[in-house]
């Protein structure tokens, strides 16, 4: 048994036979006599052939894999058409009397090294693209066959130095269970491909993996970044058990998507969906959503060239509510600010629109925008389980003001003899630290809370989540954010009110144990995440999670917290691919 450590390039685990990917060497001999005009003809022919090959591969990639993969070959074509590169190759042939092979190889390497020297993962990948294209032209010039994987006959772990898009596009993906590469990083092509295929990959495991015997057994632990060659029987058995367990959970999750999320000890939590239009509603229902925890209404405003009328809004809300029948649907009133360009609203650009007059703050100032939305929502509520939620609440007086406007709308409708549901629950988003800190006071004003962790994180951590330089600070796994979540849930429960969450955290597998332990009542997430989230919850014990949550909140940072959850609940670690 021999173990290698590398980088976790794609999570998950697998066991399979080793398939050593051995590239054919391109042997270039120096020609004594070079006829530049002949070499130029050879070069042009080879480049044209390479372009044809790339076009074919591009079409294959479009059909069989993702658009992102196909884009790579578009980039390859651009490299082949690059005037600077071609000029340089031709110069070497014409001025330095070199053969087409040597001119191409030297130029490709020079450009590739220039990219690699940028010390940035993005450029490192482009450096590989250039070499990939260069080698394709060289193979054509030297008449060398393309694929070293023709011998791949059974599902295997591909072991290679590093793989290029050209290597993998011709690969029969159904015969690959994992990748282990000697070089490469978490953003290299192999890593991206593996994540797309949902299979494990370990990158940068070192050159010794290349000498492991073809056909021998290897365990790949993509989550931990480990490759274990020729494992002991006991180690192999343990891994096979874990792999089987994760597989069962995935399969079960799809089978049971429409069943409730009941924990091992019999506690039922609500799993609902975040949607922003009718298509989202359909996808939510297909994935087993038990309602809508967040209906974003911005789409109505962003798609129009004028303020959407009450009638337009009424029809849109009604259409969505009808998809859900009696299931709860929480409509969030307009959540925009100076960062959005909605010409007809005349929103002024603000120095810091995240801290500016947005969402409810704007609506309270602009009843001509707010009231048609509320009236439309009220009218659509008849015969359905609609709830209304106000975003961006900082103080109790804002809630009272918003409720007052809502009551005005109700009175108007009553006078006009228009129906609306009488028992509509009213809630707020808790996404500003001040609201979280005074959740006990706010709980007296509303029927429910929904915690918006994306904004709550950026406001708590004072880190703009759209600014890549500080975005990593805007992470809901920081204990400061999680402690606020705990405080909000506790305060609401003491008032007998329920709490949901509609931020990204609510659908994050590693967060589910914590949120369950903090006694969150409703989990709202994007539709595709629902089946797995439900199945994870079914495999947890709510009492045990209370203890785990209490321990988690004493840790210091997201890495520690995620590591802790993975250690305590290994099956989730296997699932977070």
């Amino acid at each position, binding site marked *: 048994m021999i173990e290698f450590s590398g980088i976790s390039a794609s999570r998950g685990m697998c066991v399979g036979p080793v398939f050593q990917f051995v590239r054919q060497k391109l042997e270039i001999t120096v020609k004594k006599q070079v006829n530049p005009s002949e070499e130029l003809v050879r070069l042009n022919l080879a480049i044209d052939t390479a372009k044809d090959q790339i076009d074919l591969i591009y079409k294959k990639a479009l059909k069989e894999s993702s658009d992102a993969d196909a*884009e790579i070959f*578009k*980039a390859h074509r*651009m*490299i082949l*058409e*690059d*005037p*600077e*590169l071609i000029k340089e190759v031709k110069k070497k042939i014409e001025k330095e009397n070199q053969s087409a092979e040597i001119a191409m190889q030297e130029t490709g390497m020079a*450009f590739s090294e*220039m*990219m690699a020297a*940028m010390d940035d993962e*993005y*450029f490192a990948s*482009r450096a590989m693209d*250039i070499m990939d294209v260069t080698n394709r032209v060289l193979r054509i010039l030297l008449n060398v066959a393309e694929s070293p994987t023709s011998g791949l006959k059974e599902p295997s772990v591909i072991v290679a130095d590093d793989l290029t898009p050209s290597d993998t596009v011709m690969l029969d993906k159904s015969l690959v269970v994992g990748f282990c590469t000697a070089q490469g990083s978490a953003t290299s092509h192999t890593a991206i491909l593996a994540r797309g295929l949902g299979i494990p990959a370990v990158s940068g495991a070192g050159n010794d993996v290349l000498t492991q015997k073809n056909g021998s057994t290897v365990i790949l632990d993509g989550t931990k970044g480990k490759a274990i060659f020729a494992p002991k029987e006991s180690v192999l058995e343990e891994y096979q058990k874990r792999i089987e367990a994760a597989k069962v959970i995935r399969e079960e999750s799809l089978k049971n998507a429409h069943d409730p999320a009941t924990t091992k000890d019999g506690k039922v939590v609500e799993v609902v969906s975040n949607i922003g239009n009718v298509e989202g509603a359909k996808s939510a229902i297909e994935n087993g959503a038990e309602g809508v925890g967040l209906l974003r209404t911005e789409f109505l405003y962003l798609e129009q060239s004028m303020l959407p009328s009450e009638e337009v809004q009424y029809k849109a809300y009604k259409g969505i509510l009808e998809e859900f029948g009696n299931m709860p649907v929480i409509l969030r009133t307009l959540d925009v600010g100076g960062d959005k360009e909605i010409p007809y609203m005349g929103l002024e650009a603000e120095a810091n629109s995240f801290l500016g007059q947005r969402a409810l703050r704007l609506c309270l100032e602009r009843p001509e925008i707010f009231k048609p939305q509320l009236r439309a929502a009220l009218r659509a509520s008849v015969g359905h389980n609609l709830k209304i939620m106000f975003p961006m609440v900082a103080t109790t007086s804002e809630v009272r003001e918003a409720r007052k406007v809502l009551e005005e709308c109700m009175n108007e409708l009553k006078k006009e003899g228009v129906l609306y549901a009488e028992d509509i629950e009213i809630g707020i988003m808790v996404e500003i630290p001040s609201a979280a800190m005074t959740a006990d006071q706010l709980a007296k004003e509303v029927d429910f809370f929904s915690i918006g962790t994306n904004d709550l994180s950026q406001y708590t951590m004072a880190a703009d989540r759209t600014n*890549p330089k500080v975005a990593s600070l805007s992470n809901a796994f920081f204990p400061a954010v999680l402690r606020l979540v705990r405080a909000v849930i506790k305060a609401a429960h003491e008032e007998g009110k329920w709490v949901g969450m509609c931020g990204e955290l609510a659908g994050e597998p590693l967060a589910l144990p914590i949120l369950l332990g903090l006694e969150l009542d409703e989990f709202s997430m994007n539709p595709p995440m629902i089946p797995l989230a439900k199945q994870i919850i079914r495999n947890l014990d709510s009492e045990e999670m209370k203890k785990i949550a209490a321990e988690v909140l004493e840790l210091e940072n997201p890495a520690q917290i995620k590591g802790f959850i993975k250690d305590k609940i290994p099956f989730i670690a296997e699932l977070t691919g």
Partner: protein
Amino acid sequence: MKKEKVIVNNQVGLHARPASLFVQEAAKYQSDISVQCQDPETNENRDANAKSILGILTLGVFQGTEITITADGEDEDDAVKALIALVKDNFGEE
């Protein structure tokens, strides 16, 4: 010869997909087109062929960098106009 300055405001700057879009657009014109910018550290002036993806990538244009687009040829006006519009539109990103 036609010349115009613009600030690159999209998130990744002139890399990845935006770089390809830029080069593809430039390739539509007959004119010689180049892009100039200043190295943020050394203040050195850099210059690249706008039709060369490798040239554009190694120019190192990040979010917030000011670039000068220069075109020389029959369709220089159209070329500069189209490229400036592409940059100002943030390459169609959100």
